[in-house]
């Protein structure tokens, strides 16, 4: 078996377990975008659009693209946190799997593959609902999916690396409270970062969700002006996210190995 085959064996196991819980998760992947797009897009959007036309696109379009990246972050950060802690500590199924030909690296990669399959589904649903809401045309909506998946991968990988070094779930909720939620709010999802005071604007350039949001907008709204995207070249966004994903997978595998094999 090659390393990739072994990771797929892990994916197969995940898929078998998923057959029993899929209904709940599918329902929430429909409900979330509907809630967000009606509240932020329709509700807030009417107010924003009537007071300014600085964005160059309707606020609903602006926020839908941002939310694709932000949803990817939230979904994938969750995927890298609780199921990983469960495998190590609560249900301990990782400990059993590594007594077979599978290694901790195979598990991390398998989890990443499984995470991106699920995320692709979640984001495709989000894209289609954005079309129904009139936020995006079908083409741009679907174009937004791959960059958002890349954003998710970067988060899943780095949160996995974080989780495998943590003793318990307390640090996981800390991560969400002081990491994920602030990123959600201040990375250009709901307003362009040019609205932030200068120091915060500079800080935003270093945060990952900013690059995800930018990449999604640059890919799906190619004509977008300086009002909604920064002049940063697109390859910088891509390199940032790819590097973050690669580092997360590399370190996550090594640290999981150390954790499972004391």
């Amino acid at each position, binding site marked *: *078996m090659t390393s990739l*085959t*072994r990771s797929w*064996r*892990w994916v*197969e*196991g995940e898929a*078998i*377990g998923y057959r*029993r*819980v899929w209904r709940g998760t599918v329902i929430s992947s429909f409900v979330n975008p509907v809630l967000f797009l009606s509240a932020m897009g329709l509700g807030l959007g009417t107010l924003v659009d009537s007071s300014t036309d600085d964005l160059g696109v309707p606020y609903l379009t602006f926020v839908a693209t941002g939310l694709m990246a932000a949803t990817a972050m939230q979904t994938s950060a969750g995927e890298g946190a609780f199921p990983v802690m469960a495998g190590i500590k609560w*249900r*301990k*199924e990782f*400990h*059993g*799997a*590594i*007594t*077979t*030909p*599978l*290694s901790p690296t195979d598990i991390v990669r398998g989890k990443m593959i499984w995470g991106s399959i699920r995320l692709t589904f979640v984001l495709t649903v989000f894209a289609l609902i954005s079309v129904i809401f009139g936020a995006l045309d079908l083409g741009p909506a679907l174009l937004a999916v791959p960059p958002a998946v890349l954003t998710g991968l970067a988060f899943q990988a780095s949160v996995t690396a974080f989780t495998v070094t943590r003793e318990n779930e307390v640090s996981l909720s800390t991560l969400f409270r002081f990491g994920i939620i602030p990123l959600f709010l201040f990375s250009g999802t709901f307003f362009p970062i040019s609205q932030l005071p200068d120091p915060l604007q500079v800080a935003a350039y270093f945060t990952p969700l900013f690059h995800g949001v930018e990449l999604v907008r640059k890919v799906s709204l190619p004509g977008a002006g300086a009002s909604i995207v920064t002049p940063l070249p697109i390859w910088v966004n891509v390199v940032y996210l790819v590097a973050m994903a690669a580092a997360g997978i590399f370190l996550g595998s090594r640290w999981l190995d150390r954790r*499972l*094999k*004391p």
Partner: protein
Amino acid sequence: MAEPLVQARGLTKRFDDFVAVDAIDFDIAKGEAFGFLGPNGAGKTSTMKMITTVSPITEGKLTVFGLDPDAQGRQIRQHLGVVPQEDNLDLELTVSENLYVYGRYHDMHRADIKARIVDLLEFAQLSDRADSPVEPLSGGMKRRLTIARALINDPDLVILDEPTTGLDPQARHLLWDRLYRLKKEGATLIITTHYMDEAEQLCDRLVVMDKGKIVAEGSPRQLIAQYAPREVVELRFPEELMGAMASRLDWLEGNTEILADRVIVYTDDAEDTQHQLTEHGIHPEQVLVRRSSLEDVFLKLTGRRLID
């Protein structure tokens, strides 16, 4: 002698400064049932984990199937069946899915796995629970499933860390039968257990570990012959007499153990010992004579007190 299937020389495991396994040597031959006995914390599980390749060796040398666990772990694990001390079933999967997934991890074909699942579920007496989730199973059922899972890949070496803890007598005997069968088919077994009758029944050879070291090694019969005289006489006295017992029994020259509620005398001739007791004017309330067992060896070697 053929090359041993598992060989350890100076095998050592340290956790920071704490020495869990202290330079132990052993050879396990192909087709053998080999036991590790020892009190809690003796280092049995730590040793099992090194053999299973899921715990790096701190010092010394270990080979499994002639391979190096550090560099060739995956090759070793392909032919291994592992029953860990702590169950780690996938609680989100059903009984048969737990077996199926492990078959896939072992790169088996779907059809082969399905056929094997039927057999293993029958052995584990879980056929009627095949499609039920694992979570609500009783502790003993989970244990049986963990054991069945370890056999999915038809392993050459089966490592069982306290396999029968939590099993009822029927399930224990079923497991023993299965393990005999596996052995007859050529598999090698490594077993840790706290049940001395189990060790006596199953193990061709065993080692007794204490505080990370091997303190005795041999077949159950050899160990009994070497460490425990043939018979054991257990004497019970009224509590108020127990205090003076040590000095009143000193003529037995140390072949005694004085416990809180009784005295144990090791002897080659129980009848003679009883005569002598009467001659010394010692009249216990109750006398029990039995053959000495592996349990006596174990207690003698590792002490009766819980030292922690």
